[in-house]
């Protein structure tokens, strides 16, 4: 009876567990040096986006500003929020969120643009 109970409750955390294994992703501690480098990149990009806004680029001012903002957001998501070191499930969750957000923007804009309300 005791032997049966010992075999049944076997909860040692082990990389090669059975089919009920929840995740393969090792727990990785990101170094402070990485954080510092990314923070400096972000500060540099902030200065650039402010500086570039004073240069005449026509319609590309908005494009460049959004592109730099997307780059900064990617750095924060990948390194500060640890997505680069996350499991596939977490990565998929983030990507599906971005996809849904793009659907929100795109479908709303197609709705407005396709109706001739005299604005476009």
């Amino acid at each position, binding site marked *: 009876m005791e032997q049966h109970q010992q075999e049944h409750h076997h909860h040692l955390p082990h990389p090669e567990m059975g089919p009920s294994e929840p*995740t393969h992703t090792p727990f990785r501690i990101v170094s402070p040096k990485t954080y510092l480098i990314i923070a400096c990149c972000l500060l540099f990009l902030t200065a650039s986006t402010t500086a570039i806004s004073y240069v005449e680029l026509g319609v590309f001012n908005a494009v460049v500003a959004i592109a730099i903002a997307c780059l900064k957001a990617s750095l924060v998501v990948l390194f500060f929020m640890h997505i680069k070191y996350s499991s596939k499930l977490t990565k998929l969750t983030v990507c599906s969120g971005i996809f849904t957000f793009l659907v929100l923007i795109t479908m709303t804009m197609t709705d407005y643009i396709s109706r001739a309300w005299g604005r476009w």
Partner: protein
Amino acid sequence: MDSHTIAAQTAEPAQIELEHPPFLRHHFENLAQQREAATFGMWVFLLTEIMFFGGLFCAYLVFRNWYYPAFVAGSHTLHIWAGTLNTTLLIISSFTMAMAVHAAEVRHRVPLMRWMIVTIILGVGFLCVKGYEWHDEWVHHHVPGLNFSIEEFTHVNPAYPGDKPLAPDMAEKTQLYYSLYFAMTGMHALHMVIGVCLLTILLIRAQAGAYTNGHIAPVENFGLYWHFVDIIWIFLFPLLYLISRHQ
């Protein structure tokens, strides 16, 4: 007999803690799965927040396209130094929050508290700059619904002599710009206030050693929230402050 009692009979004390730490909830198989589930849940919440702010960004996108001159005039009344300073404060606070998570991961209690305190100070600093800006808008009659006046926009702006003054109907549209400005920065500021309050609670618990015994999930997941609020501002800043500054 439950699993904990079995483990107590068959294993050494250090191994028991490794197998079944007190903060491991019984409906999870092991600590890794518990952390993964908590992080997944936090991300799903953040995605709903992205959709929430996404609606406001969509409105901004449409009205900026329809009434571009009004948006340019509105944007030129904002202080670019304040926006840049706020962006810098938030980026540094994201760094300090990441360092706080790291301190929890390596189980250093005092550094964890120090990094959390710096993050709180930077967050409050951001809110102070924002408060100053809002007061400035109020003084200049830029608050829709309170004391809004198009007076300033129907005359030449001395800081931007190249800008033509707006016709009255386009000048009225600056109210849309300021409505969106206050709605978006207001929602963002509310998220900052909630973040600072939560972080203060976490700080008190961290002082008691709650997050330096391996139970890092609350600090980690609050870090996700804080970085998300930073990302929202990263997008708000160029959209609201940097419209056509090249003149």
